[in-house]
């Protein structure tokens, strides 16, 4: 599951994330992070047998968790399958298939916006 974690300033200094990994059987991937002493947010991908428990632990520690749903949408009418966006995606959410059709996997997408700003026909929109 992908989610934004919102930290309050009091939590930033704690070792919540390392404790999570120590105590639960989860695999944990930080996709983006923006943390300052004034709090911050972090985009994570969490999976594993104890993912649910891990999430409960995070919430108990005071981290607000916002799961990501659909973040980008490609307008198939506007898209001309040029592939300009493909190499810009940091998580390889955009791929070209055998027939050279460009696909966007919104499960993988982290909403960075690189593709939206680079598309020559403005075919990709971020939808929070």
């Amino acid at each position, binding site marked *: 599951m992908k989610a934004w974690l919102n930290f309050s300033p009091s939590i930033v200094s704690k070792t919540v994330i390392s404790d999570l990994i120590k105590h639960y059987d989860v695999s944990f991937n930080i996709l983006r992070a923006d943390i300052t002493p004034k709090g911050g947010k972090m985009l994570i991908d969490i999976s594993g047998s104890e993912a649910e428990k891990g999430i409960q632990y995070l919430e108990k520690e005071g981290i607000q968790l916002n799961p990501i749903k659909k973040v980008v949408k490609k307008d198939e009418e506007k898209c*001309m*399958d*040029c*592939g*300009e*966006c*493909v*190499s*810009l*995606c940091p998580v*390889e959410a955009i*791929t*070209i298939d055998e*027939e*050279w*059709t*460009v696909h966007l996997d919104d499960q993988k997408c982290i909403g960075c916006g*690189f593709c939206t*700003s*680079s598309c*020559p*026909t*403005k075919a990709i929109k971020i939808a929070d």
Partner: protein
Amino acid sequence: MKTIEEINQKIRDGDAVVVTASEMTRIVQENGAEEAAKEVDVVTTGTFGAMCSSGAFFNFGHSDPPIKMSHTYLNGVEAYSGLAAVDAYLGATQPHRNPDIGLDYGGAHLLEDLVRGKEIELVAEAYGTDCYPRTEVHTFISLESLNQAIMVNPRNCYQNYAAATNSTEETIYTYLGTLLPQMGNVGYSSAGELSPLLNDPYFQTIGVGTRIFLCGSQGYILGEGTQHATDGERENGVPVGSAGTLMLQGDLKKMDAKFLRGATMPKYGPTLYVGAGIPIPILNEEIAQRTGISDQDIHCNIYDYGVPRRSRPAVMETNYQELRSGKIEINGREVQTSPLSSLKKALEVAQELKSWIEKGNFFLTNPVQNIPNKGCTVKPLQIRRPSILVKDLKIKPVITARAEDDISGVARKMVDDNINHVPVVDHAGRLMGIVTSWDIAHAVAQDSKKLTEVMTKKVIVAMEDEPVELIARRIDKHEISGVPIVNRENRVRGMITAEDISRLICSQNNKEGDSQ
């Protein structure tokens, strides 16, 4: 050996064997060129890429009272109307005249809107003449209402093209797309083995007048395009760089927006995606062999677009098989590639053209004339700024000495006016020689009294109408700090020093910096 006429007869009879360039590559690989030449009559190629050098001529028709348009705007995009009264040429890369819209809607978008049948706002201005009294027009037009809308693209279908990466620390925005820092990705644009001019690399069948597929309609090749080049490096018979180009013409009224799209390269500008396909008649084995070229055999260089110069450094050579695999290794690191031209659409173009020929709706043509396949090179633009002449400089009034002046007087002049050179002149102000502070010191030491004894008689001078650059080089060459300026009568007009010149260069550079 076949002729175009024979192939056309087969098309008429519904017997022609037509394959796409990708299919041909496999056929030649499997059966060899000799068999392929017997079996196949026509190979269709295709490309669908950003072709900036595109546009269209329009004829709007005459209003009453009539106008001779001198500035013309279509949906706010300026078209060039210095052509008779109601003709204009709209270029694909022209941005919107409103800077807030700017690059987001340009000539290319307008062309797509026209082809989609949309209504377009026409604004025109004129200075008014006796025969064309109207001075402005504000109305709406559509593709249908135009008398003519003829696409003429001065440079399309680049034979091959560079691939791009970016070594700098910042993302850059280019006509080859967005390039991530530290060579984080690669953009390329050729359709590879499907691309028209890679399948006929020596223009054996493609020529002036060749009928082609252009944006969903039947168009024609007008001839070689601008920047057509033939003599660059080749591998496996095909150029590794941009090389040959074509000038194309087609009827916008018959085009299909599926094969013509307005686009904006972010922070670069509008560009038109053009779908073009050229049929290649398989007249003999050699032509079959050439159309059998595969992505692997087509090489190109990846250049560092982080270096904003005409000659960018090549990072490495690659081929289209590698580029099309989606990933490529640069300096030991795997990075993703972006095709930029749509390979899917390129294939659609080749297939559409194939089906036209199979259905007997499209016939092949003999070229009216060949397109040059050697002897064409592209010259760079030399920047020559207008030279500044010596007489244009602001020169301080000159202090001179007369030949009969005594040395101590001249020494005092030098100290008082803080100068190091004094030209020595005769009664009419004509240059006789020059003395420097060093000459004076020397004279005092040797106790000589006459200026004419210590002065340098062979004086290096600047003429009033010489360019300053020339004087700079002269001063440098003779390792001197300044020269007297003389007119045609050899009369001294001033002094020019190395310092004056460096001050001039500084102020010029500042001026150029301001206007960028």
